[in-house]
């Protein structure tokens, strides 16, 4: 492909982006698709032109938040970013980002399924693989398939420094195929639990196939594990979080250790899962040579990405939007809510569009039983609102506390009209976009896709 042809293609794609903006369709990946149709190697060419290279982040949970934290760190380091911050993480979105932004360093979150082909084209300096959980089985297939695909990516490597989660045996197990991987993890056995959550992955020793035994579970199958026959154990993590203090919805503090140095660190994004995202971001930045003081400053400056524990003032009330999309992530959101001292009004929205997963069975694997102990009404909405209410009923929530408003605008109006403290909205992905659109229309939120 000639430079000229890419130039023409990129102008067409930018024009398409402008038309889409005028039309109000808000599409973030459509112009990228136009570009790729005209110039199939546009991603490789644009990426190679980034003066300071790029880094790639993939995971089932936490991609957007982790890259938000990395972006703060890189900004503190004086880098101008090309970053798909709206979360458009397949080929079209990456191409559109590369075509629409100017900067010297690329930061890309990449969809789990698209990782092999995009890594090949992007040639990242570092690749962060943070976790793998069951997610939208109708779309991604079973987890084993993703692990196999990722192993190929690590093997072929393409010169990227691998940054791996020591606490996730599915990820750490890929380290055997990597050259000097950098591991991160949690070193605090006062958080998490000694028993596994329901439907946690059953990770096995690659040598003898015995199920790993755990001294501590942090999230799902993430924890401190070892083969009971002594073949394989969790690798030592070089970048860690310890002395973790979770403060409900207001955030957390922890000690971040980078090699030999330790730092008291504040994080304004709540929940243990976001401590993982922060330490993952620190590890990625460290692998890129960013200094510790910039890393600490970046983490402290990081704020929730849109829809990920984002808090907005609406009608005089605090309203927090916390995306739910799979059992592991939902469990962490519910655990964070339960640890908060306030009681909350809840609006839960279950949609079954392709981006949410057409199969809604996952809500039965999430521990909504945690809501049985709460007192306030729970509003159920979305295209599968009734089945959500059913899930809560069989989870032990009194039927009298369940209010059904399948139409989201009516549900939101009812939730805001209720006389309570903080309103917490738990939407699936497309529902999250709809909730934000309604809040933007009310003039209380800024648009997701600027």
């Amino acid at each position, binding site marked *: 492909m000639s430079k000229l042809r890419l130039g023409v293609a990129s102008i067409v794609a930018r024009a398409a982006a402008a038309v889409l903006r005028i039309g109000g369709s808000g599409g973030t990946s459509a112009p990228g698709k136009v570009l790729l149709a005209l110039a199939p190697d546009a991603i490789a060419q644009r990426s190679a032109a980034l003066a300071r290279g790029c880094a790639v982040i993939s995971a089932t949970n936490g991609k957007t938040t982790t890259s938000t934290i990395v972006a703060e760190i890189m900004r503190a380091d004086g880098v101008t970013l090309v970053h798909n911050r709206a979360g458009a993480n397949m080929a079209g979105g990456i191409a559109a980002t590369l075509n629409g932004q100017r900067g010297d360093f690329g930061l890309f979150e990449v969809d789990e399924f698209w990782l092999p082909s995009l890594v090949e084209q992007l040639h990242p300096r570092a690749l962060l693989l943070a976790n793998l959980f069951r997610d939208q089985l109708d779309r991604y297939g079973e987890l084993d398939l993703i692990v196999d695909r990722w192993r190929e990516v690590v093997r072929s490597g393409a010169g990227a420094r691998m940054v791996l989660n020591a606490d996730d045996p599915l990820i750490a197990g890929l380290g055997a195929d990597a050259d000097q991987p950098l591991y991160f993890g949690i070193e605090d056995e006062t958080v998490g639990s000694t028993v596994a959550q329901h439907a946690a992955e059953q990770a096995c020793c690659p040598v003898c196939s015995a199920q790993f035994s755990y001294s501590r579970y942090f999230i799902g199958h993430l924890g401190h594990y070892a083969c009971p026959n002594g073949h394989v154990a969790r690798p030592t993590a070089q970048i860690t979080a310890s002395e973790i203090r979770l403060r409900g919805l207001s955030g957390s503090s922890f000690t971040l250790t980078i090699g030999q140095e330790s730092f008291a660190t504040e994080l304004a994004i709540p929940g243990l899962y976001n401590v993982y995202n922060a330490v993952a971001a620190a590890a990625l930045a460290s692998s890129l040579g960013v200094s510790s003081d910039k890393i600490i400053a970046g983490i402290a400056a990081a704020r929730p990405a849109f829809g990920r524990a984002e808090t907005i003032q609406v009608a005089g009330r605090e309203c927090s939007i916390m995306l739910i999309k799979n059992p592991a992530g939902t469990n962490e959101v519910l655990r964070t809510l339960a640890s908060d001292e306030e009681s909350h009004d809840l609006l839960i929205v279950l949609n079954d569009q392709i981006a949410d997963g057409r199969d809604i069975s996952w809500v039965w694997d999430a521990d909504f039983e945690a809501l049985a102990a709460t007192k306030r009404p729970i509003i159920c909405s979305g295209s599968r609102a009734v089945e959500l209410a*059913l899930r809560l009923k069989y989870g032990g929530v009194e039927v009298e506390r369940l209010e059904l408003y399948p139409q989201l605008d009516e549900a939101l109006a009812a939730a805001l009209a209720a006389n309570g403290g903080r309103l917490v909205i738990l939407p699936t992905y497309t529902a999250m976009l709809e909730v934000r659109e309604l809040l933007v229309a009310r003039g209380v939120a800024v648009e997701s896709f600027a």
Partner: protein
Amino acid sequence: MAERGLRIAALYPEQMNIYADRGNLAVLERRCRWRSIAAEVTAVGLGEKLDPERFNLIYLGGGQDDDQRRCAADLVETKREGLISAAAIGAVVFGVCGGYQLLGRWYELGDQRIDGVGLLDVETVRSDGPRLIGNVAIECHLPGADPSAVLAGFENHGGRTRLLAGATPLGRVLSGHGNDGVSGDEGCRRGNVIGTYLHGPLLPANSWFADWLIATALEDDLVLAELDDQLELGGHRAACRAAGLSGR
């Protein structure tokens, strides 16, 4: 006869749980308790024998390929006899997705043939073709149930299952793929032994079928007390709509 009430054996709940199988168990348990019928779920895992006298409902869910392979070997080795005896003395044996496949004769995965327990006369072959994924609704004829009763759920399977001569499907596909995407058959039933690809999970949105399983497991002519099923019926209509059926 052992103690009264619904005594459920959940086989391999740690491995065979991929499509939210615990939802099915929760529905069976709660719908008994709401009627003041005792209900107990006991996990029977790898290496454990199955006592056929102890349970009147045996549940087997689906798993990922590796987990399913491990469980299949264990099932044949340690539980086949118990399962066959339990079915012979009237226990309900209910398998969903991978559990359905393992209740059959065998499951062919590439060049490997995994033996099942053979309680159902079906054979399954993993196809190179696309997985059969989507919302699904079937009409089924169960003894004592409404002859046009519908089950609605979600299916996601790479295996194609074929009924052998004389085997009866659980139902006819109204919408979706069913056993193999072409025959129009879904699931298989032989007496109290039932296999199906429908998850969702199946029982929350098909409470009539949950009650049929409970009544069949307890005693054939039992009439269960009615429950307030407003939400359950709403869920059933929503699952039918998702499968493209209207007016139900």
